[in-house]
Each structure stands twice: as C-alpha cells, then as structure tokens.
C-alpha cells in the first residue's frame, strides 16, 4: 500500500531535516557547544588547543576568569561534563572505565573514596604542590586522588525559632534526643543523599560502631523526619528555607548560614541560621580530583590537577562551591566570616568507611525507616 511509503518518506524527510538542523543551525550555546566544526584552510602557526574533558557532579562551579586563564596557560579547551550528583557521576565514570568519557574526574569525596580506588579508574599523579597539603586531607597515599577542597556537614538551626521559644539551640548530637527538641529535626536519607551519609558517619564517629544505632533509635523515638535529599529537607521541611515547613533543625553544611547571607540580595546582614558545632556533631567531607586511566589528554589532565591546587583556583573555591580550599593560607572571601568551622568534627577512618559504609547504611535503614 502506497501510503505507507508516503508516510515513510515524510518521516525520512523529517529525519533528514533534523540532520540539516544539526549541521546548519547555530546550536543554542555556541560557547558551550561540544561539536567542533572541521576547520578548513591554512594551518595556524601556534598548535591548536587540545581538548580537556573533565567529568564532575552537578555542584561543580568556577569563575569564568579563572577557567579562561587555565585554558590559556595550558593551551586547552576545557569541556565540563556534568554527570548527575556525586554518586551518579562516579558510578558513570566507573562504568565507562574501558572507554573513558573524560580525561579527569573531579568530585570523589572521602565517603566514596574506596569505591573510586577499588574500581581502579585513576592514574597516580602527585602534583608538585602536594607536599604543602595538610596530612589530614591526603587520604590517598598513592595520589591517585588529590584533595582539593573540604566542607563540614553540620546541623543548621533556625535562630528566630529558638529565640521566640526562648529555648537554647542544641549543642550536641545527644541534645537532639531530648524531649525539648522533639519533632524538630530533619535529616537526609544516607542511602540517597551525600550530606545524609556524612551525618550518619558523624554519628558513627561520635557514638562508635556499636552505639550509633542506639542514638538513631532514640532520634526516631524523638520524631526525626527523614527526607530523600537535601533540597527537600532545606526548602520544603525547614522552618526558614522555603515555605510551609516547620522544622528548625536540618542537616546541611556549616557554610549554609554564610550562603544565606550571600544569597539574600543584601537583605540579610546576619545569617538566619546557626550551626550545631559541639564536639563530634559534624562530619568533614573532603573532595578529590584525579586523572582518569585511558585519558586521551593525560598531560592536560595533570595540568588541571596542578591548577586545582593553585592559589587562583583555591581562592575561587569558597564563593563558587561554598567549601573550603585545602591549601593552608588561602585567602577567604569576606562573607565566609559567617561560615563557622567545627573545632572537633567526628572522625571515622577512611579504612573504616571503606569496610562498613554499605553495612551501616543498611543497618540505619532497618533501624530508622522500616
């Protein structure tokens, strides 16, 4: 029957049109388009810039000027491949091991260090400036992964709420299980959320492997609210972030109060929230970068690792990603004065996290959710 050929032909034309559109129309963002047009004509005298592909998570950010400067010095064009949240991005990198998607990967944190190292997707590279790194951050002695920044996952609390109730904000994790703080706390599910996992590790560090579940059972009895992710906890359940929520204590980052001031359009002079900074109440996340095995442009990837430790990038980190630079003595932006730092974050060794992470998450799920 002819009409089917007609329909087929129409569809073919339509498909061809897409092809033309692909080839002919300026794609929406010329600066960010990965399609490089073949350049005809005389060859340039300076070598054309190579391409450096960096795979990372959705929270990666940097200043244009800083990246441009790197591109010029290293003579590369940087392409950023955002690949989902930290966990999803790492898993994709592991799946793509035999045919890597990128040259370098940024955004492995200390809670997933073992997964990255066991999968053996990184090549060892120790940048020259690595000797200046504080020992606490150099968690991979082989330097397959180089630390770049860190941040503390802490409980934020609503200052106005506690003032109005003339109730002292909690100081420690133990406080959360007291009757006066009943039904006030929101935590994220450690099985689905990076700050959620960090907070679970804080409780393991603070109470020990044998006792942390007792704390969680007490917290459950005190009507803790669990959300899947940070966004929902902060914007739908907290008493300050969005609307309609009524919980004044939320697991977030120690820098969140500073970010509240920064992102208030000049309306806030003081952060609306504070941090629970008692000993062992926070967990420190360290983020790493590494050169991927099988990288097409390993030289540029190594330069990128160097660059992330350079003063230029380190100074850029706080205002872009709201984390602290790892290099000692790096200048911090003014608004970071509102970002408090816990004196004694909880400590769980990387080896311990490696060995028990999944078991702890499972035990937590059974104790708190089921």
């Amino acid at each position, binding site marked *: 029957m002819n009409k089917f050929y007609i329909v087929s032909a129409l569809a073919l034309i339509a498909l061809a049109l897409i092809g033309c559109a*692909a080839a002919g129309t300026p794609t929406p963002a010329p600066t960010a388009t990965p399609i490089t047009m073949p350049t005809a004509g005389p060859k340039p005298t300076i070598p054309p810039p190579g391409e450096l592909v960096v795979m990372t998570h959705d929270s990666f950010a940097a200043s244009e000027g800083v990246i441009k400067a790197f591109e010029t010095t290293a003579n590369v064009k940087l*392409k950023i*491949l955002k690949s989902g949240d930290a966990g999803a991005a790492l*898993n994709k990198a592991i799946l793509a091991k035999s045919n890597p998607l990128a040259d370098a990967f940024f955004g492995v944190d200390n809670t997933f260090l073992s997964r990255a190292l066991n999968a053996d997707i990184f090549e060892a590279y120790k940048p020259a400036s690595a000797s200046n790194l504080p020992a606490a951050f150099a968690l991979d002695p082989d330097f397959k992964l180089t630390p770049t920044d860190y941040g503390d996952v802490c409980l934020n609390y609503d200052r106005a709420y506690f003032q109005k109730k003339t109730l002292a904000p909690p100081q420690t994790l133990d406080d959360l299980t007291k009757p006066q703080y009943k039904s006030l706390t929101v935590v994220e599910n450690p*099985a689905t959320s990076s700050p959620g996992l960090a907070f679970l590790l804080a409780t393991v560090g603070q109470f020990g492997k044998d006792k942390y579940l007792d704390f969680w059972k007490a917290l459950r009895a005190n009507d803790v609210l669990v959300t899947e992710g940070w*966004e929902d906890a902060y914007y739908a*359940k907290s008493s300050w972030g969005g609307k309609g929520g009524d919980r004044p204590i939320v697991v977030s980052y120690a820098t969140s109060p500073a970010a509240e001031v920064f992102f208030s359009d000049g309306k806030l002079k003081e952060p609306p929230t504070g941090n629970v900074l008692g000993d062992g109440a926070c967990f420190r996340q360290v983020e790493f970068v590494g050169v991927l095995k099988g990288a097409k442009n390993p030289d540029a990837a190594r330069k990128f690792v160097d660059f992330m430790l350079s003063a230029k990038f380190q100074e850029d980190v706080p205002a872009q990603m709201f984390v602290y630079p790892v290099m000692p003595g790096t200048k911090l932006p003014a608004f970071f004065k509102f970002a408090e730092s816990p004196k004694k974050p909880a400590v769980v060794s990387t080896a311990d996290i490696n060995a028990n992470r999944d078991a702890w998450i499972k035990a937590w799920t059974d104790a708190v959710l089921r």
Partner: protein
Amino acid sequence: MKTHRPALLLPLAFLAAFYVYPLAAILQTSFSGDTRGLAELCADAYYARVLAFTVFQAALSTLLTLVVALPAAYIFARYDFRGARVLRALTTLPFLMPTIVVATAFSALFGPRGSVNLALMQFLQLDQPPIQILNTLWVILLAHTFYNFTIVLRIVGGFWANLDPQVENAARVLGANRARTFLHVTLPLIAPAIVAAALLVFIFDFTSFGVVLILGGPRLATLEVEIYRQTVNLFNLPIAAALSLAQLVCTFALMYVYTRLQARLAQPLRLRPQAIVKRKPQRAREKIFVWGYLTAMLVFLMTPLVSVIAASFEDGSGYYAELFINRRGSIMFVPPMEAVRNSLFFAAITIVLAVGLGLLAAYALVSQSRAARILDPVFMLPLGTSAVTLGFGFILALGNLRASIWLVPIAHALIAFPFVVRSLLPMLRSIQPQLRQAAQILGASPARVWREIDLPIVARAVIVGAVFAFTVSMGEFGATALVARPELPTIPLAIYRFLGQPGLVNFGQALALSTILMVVSAAAIVAMERLRVGESEF
C-alpha cells in the same frame, strides 16, 4: 490488512539502537554471568513488598486520575465554551513541573505551616495543623492525579470529541436513561481511548520516581526508587538489574494484555467534525455542571502552580532580574533566555523524532496482525524502563554519542514516542475502511485518499501527540540529568541548579524560572493547538 513492514523499519531501528542495545549492555554487565541479583531478589521479602506497593499505588492512582479527569474529558469533548483552548493548555502545566518544585509548592500549601493549614487552624481554632498528608500514600495519589490529569483529558477528550452524538441521541430516544446510555452506548465506544490513557497513566505511576522519592518520603518505595538507590547509591548493579528486569517484565505483561484488550475493543466509528458535535451549555443544570467542574479542576491543578508564581514575585521582579545577572562570574551561569532556547530546541527535535517515528509505528500497528500484537507492547517498553538503568546503559553502549547533546532529545523521544503511538492508534483504528474504499472507487490516488480521509483525522491525533512530546521534553529532568552532558542546560536543569544551594535568592530564582517554564510552555501549547490541517475541524 497486512503488516506494513517498511513503515516499521525506522522505529525499530531507532529502538534497537537507543533502547535495546544500551539496555542489553547494562544488563549483561550487571549480571556478568552470575544470577546472584535474581537470587537475592527472590530471597528477600522486602522486594516483594516493594513490588506489591508499586502495583497498589499505581492502580489506585490510575483509578483516581480516571475518576477525576473523565468528566473533564467529557466537558471538553462535548461543550463549546470560551477559553477552552487556554484551559486545556493549563491542565498540561503540572505535567512539566519539576517534582522538587511541586514538593515545595505542596509544602507551602499543606505543610505544617503551609497556608492551607494555617488558615484552617485559625478558622477552626485548632492548635495542630489538620492536614497532614506529606510523606503519606495520600500525597502520592494526589500528586499522581495532579501530574497525569492531562493525559486522560487529552487522549480520551480528543477521541470523544469526534464521536457522533447521534448514536447516544438514538439511545435516549429509544428510552434509555442517561446512565444507561453512558454505560451501554458511550462507554463501549470510548473504551479504546480510556484504556489507552489508563495504560499510560498506570505506567507513569508504576515507574514513578520523583513523586514517590520526594513527596512520598523515604519510607515508601517503588521499584524505580529502589533501582535508583541500588544503582546510584549502593552501586549494587546485580540487584538493580534484577529489579529493572522485574519492572520490565511487569510492564510487558501489562502491555500485552492491554494490546489484546484494545484489539477487541477497537471498532470503526462514524467520526464527526467537532464543530458539529459540540454545543454551548444551555440549561442551568448544564451550566452549573460545566462551570462548576471546570472551576474545581482549575483549583485542583492550578493552586500549587499559582503558589509557585506568587512566591516568585514576592520580591517584586527582583528574582527575575537576578536571573540575568552572573553575580559570581561563574562559568556555570545560565542566562535564562539560553535555558529557554535550549529547552525549546530540544523539544522541537523531540517532536519531530517522536511524531515521525510514532506515525510510522502507529500505521504499522493498525493492522492488528500477529506481528503488531507483539510489537505494540514492545514499542511501549521504553516508558516502563528505569531511566537510571537505561542512562547507565547509554554510558556503556553508545561510544562517542555518550557525551553528545543529541542524546538529550533522543532520550526524550524514547519517552515521548509511546505517547504519540497511543494518541494515534485509537484514532487510526476508528477510520472506517469503507471510506477509503469509496474514495478509491471514486478514482482518488492513494496519496489523495490519505490526504482526504486519513489526514484530517490523523492531524488531530498528531497534534495531541506533538503536545505530549513537547511536554515530555520541556519537563523531563531524569533522563537529561542521567546523560553525561556538556553544558547545554535546559530550564529544569537550571531550576535544580538553583535549588542545590541555600539562600532565599536561589529559591526565588528557581521559582521564577519555574514560572517562565509554565508561561513558555503554555504559549507553545496554545500555538500548537491552533494549527489546523485539512478543511474540517477535527
């Protein structure tokens, strides 16, 4: 009619390349020879409970959606009233809202300090918020109905609108009362469209991710949620693959039953142009019903959206102005117009891909041959496949295309394609073969037969399908985020980026962008529905 194999080649090739091959790759890698995953799955009663809950909530959600949306489909099909087009476009908006935005809107309304609860507490002198639905099954049902209302309205309404009312009138004249007429005359006639819509809604609810994950809270899990946890967080691929397979088998079984059912239900009908079918509500009772129902529908679908829009203007136009400023000089800054352009660009390609392939597939499936009976459910499978599994399959299978921007519209088209097929099939099957034969006998060329007989009827279904493809693409977040992509952010991605950081201005900008998403989409949908092909208004 025989199966039209040439027409099938393109859609089959598309599915083979972008669905079957990546899926096979990820399943093979996940199992890598051992069946531990399957064994673990069967051994742990937890997974059986997850499956049971997944089916239960999907069935209940689908039923609720049908009950709420069918009267609206009737009103849009049978009555001629001012603003119908705009109203119908508005019903589409929930479908494209990012879940996290809907979650904040639900919280703003029904949260413990949400406006509805505060008002009720004041009004009824209560000291506890009376509505506590967040993180319960109720909010899942509510949200699924909110999201999928438009599917039923469009697919059933679109079909119903061309049904000849003479048949019903005849039944009434012969003494059947209203209920009897509906049950015995109307219902059997519109059944194919109802079943098609119900199937789509069920599959959406069955593979529901964001709604269950965010609104339902961590205690309630569907298969899709469990697959996501196992894949992304625990990286337990054998279990994830086993769950994906279970989900796939369920979907296929459902589709197979459906295909058989639909083949039995479908019948050639006398379709009529809408202009003849529709009339203005005249009697007082009619007016009350029509306007009362429409008002209730608007309140249900629009209140959360209006609360988003209202909150986006809380700072005057401040949040909108802020969208245009790259305050931190970030390379990740997305000018809002660029996000709009990217979204529209991807949506346009998705429409062409999904409608082109969908037309071919639908024509090939009309015949209901043995091949069609197997292929019809196969074509629906992408909708019932876990997005995260398929996304990981892309990484393994698609080589250099993996980091290409073209993967975004391809992923969107995979989801939109089944919608187009489902919108088209009931219409195509209802065309009376005698009409075509008559035209042929009268000397019309096959092309002319298609233009005069098929096109006017098909065109309407195509527009329904195109609107779905557009909506899927504009609102899709999961697949977009799962594809490793260079910087060509869509509106939903930009919204998520703002919601990833603390601070009122970020929240405000996310809501402002959500508002822009609604306005742009509503305008585009109204424009698409104004398109008319052929002479009569079908």
